């Protein structure tokens, strides 16, 4: 579904991604783990088009994604739930969710999407008219994920959904992501610093270090890897 080949991104002189190749097959749950500054968010931004790569290719369902303007990429079925949630603070919860359905195809299914989002996160149904900027961190994350789902995506990209949340909320969020993946057969690309949780749920995992793919494998391979256990899994 997503084929990234030798993708490089530079910020001025700094090389944030160095010839990274990543594959995501339809229906897969792919996790990308790695330390701060590894380039995980940069990779997501390159896929969404908010940073321009200095080399390499991105193919999505057989078409050259880099030729598609950033604002037209969501309509192809790519939803990006960004780092730090980035809800629209001065808009209500409902308006935030509806922004996810901005593309016409998603707008046509908005009513049904909203039902599914409320089923997944019932608390949001009670907070429909509250300004998203006044929600708690966990609630904002639910809005961010719900907003992504309102796009009726085929590929859901989540950038550190656990960041800054209490353990119980993190568990709930990971549960929901699993649920979305299984029940709707949605392809998931998850970036996480919580390597253990992320690798447990995934079919395929990548370890990104200082802009390079340091390791690839299925979840058993990675979870059992000695070096990985020491540096990321705290075992």
């Amino acid at each position, binding site marked *: 579904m997503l084929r990234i080949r030798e993708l490089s991104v530079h910020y001025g002189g700094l090389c944030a991604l160095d010839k990274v190749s990543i594959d995501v097959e339809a229906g897969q749950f792919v996790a990308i783990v790695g330390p701060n500054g590894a380039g995980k968010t940069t990779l997501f931004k390159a896929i969404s088009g908010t940073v321009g790569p200095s080399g390499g290719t991105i193919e999505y369902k057989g078409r050259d994604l880099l030729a598609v303007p950033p*604002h037209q990429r969501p309509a192809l079925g790519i939803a990006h739930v960004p780092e730090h949630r980035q809800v629209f603070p*001065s808009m209500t919860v409902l308006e935030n969710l509806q922004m996810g359905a901005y593309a016409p195809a998603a707008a046509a299914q908005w009513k049904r999407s909203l039902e599914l989002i409320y089923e997944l996160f019932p608390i949001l149904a009670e907070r429909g008219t509250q300004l998203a900027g*006044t929600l708690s*961190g966990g609630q904002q994350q639910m809005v961010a994920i719900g907003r992504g789902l309102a*796009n009726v995506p085929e590929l859901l990209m989540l950038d550190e959904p656990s960041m800054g949340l209490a353990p119980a909320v993190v568990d709930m969020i990971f549960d929901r992501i699993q649920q979305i993946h299984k029940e709707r057969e949605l392809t998931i690309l998850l970036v996480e610093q919580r390597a253990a949780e992320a690798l447990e749920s995934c079919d395929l995992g990548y370890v990104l270090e200082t802009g390079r793919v340091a390791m690839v494998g299925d979840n058993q391979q990675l979870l059992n890897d000695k070096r990985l256990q020491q540096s990321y899994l705290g075992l």
Partner: protein
Amino acid sequence: MEFGIFLEDAAQALATGILVGGAYALMCVGLGIIFGSMRVINFAQGDFMMLGMYATYYLATSALVGVFGLYAGPAVAALLSGPILFAFGWLLHKTMISRVTGARVADMDGGGGYAQLILTLGIGLVLQNGGLILFGSTPIAVLTPLSRQSWEVGTVLLNQARVVAFVAAIGIAALVNLFLTYSRIGRGLRAAADNPVAATYMGVDVTKAHRIAFSLGVAVTAVAGGLLASSQSFQPYIGIDFVIVMYAGVVLGGLGSIMGAFWGGLTIGLVQQLSTLFLPYQLQNTTIFLVFLLIIFFWPQGMFGRVSERT
């Protein structure tokens, strides 16, 4: 007896202030849309208003609008100046403003603020001097018989031209607010204002959203100018006074809030008229700033500032 006269004067100033305030409120809404959506520092807004006044003047005297008659004609002309200035704003954004705003300047010194300041001051100068060449320096006004007719409510005289302008201004402000609140484009504009990067992830073309916001803001302020033009004489330099009024109104209402800009503008109109009760006419703008400073002192967020946000 003395006090009775003062009360009558006060009631008159209050009424005139509210009527004038309607057009002020609308022009502040125009600036508020632009500032709220793009955070662009725009000192040419008063000159866009001036263009709206001249567009209204020439439309009102044209054969085309003439068919609406002496009474409805000027108001129709003011409304028609909107689409014309919308197109002007579109062109201006496409050719110039977009080069100093949006994503591409986020990394520039001062977030592009300096470039915006110089550019819009420059555009303002060109419009003022161009206006001088094209329109001449003689003050003119849009003539309508309504300017010389009043309705009497008790002792208070309501100038008919001002009442028409007031009603039109409130109507347009309400429509603009409905558009921004409930339409898909309006939601896109607000999302792009809140967080342009996240808006892109939703599928919003942020540059286009900014272009729409800028053009709409120019058009709304131009219509406000056109409505004002039947009760206020103007020349190509009138924008300088009004850009100050507009910024005061927008800041007063709370930067970034459209409803705030509306109430801020109305307040400015009121203050300006009420000040004539106590102070010579020349001190009108000084009073505006005095009140402005007082309000900012007590409500630094503006009267309608946004709710505090968690980050």
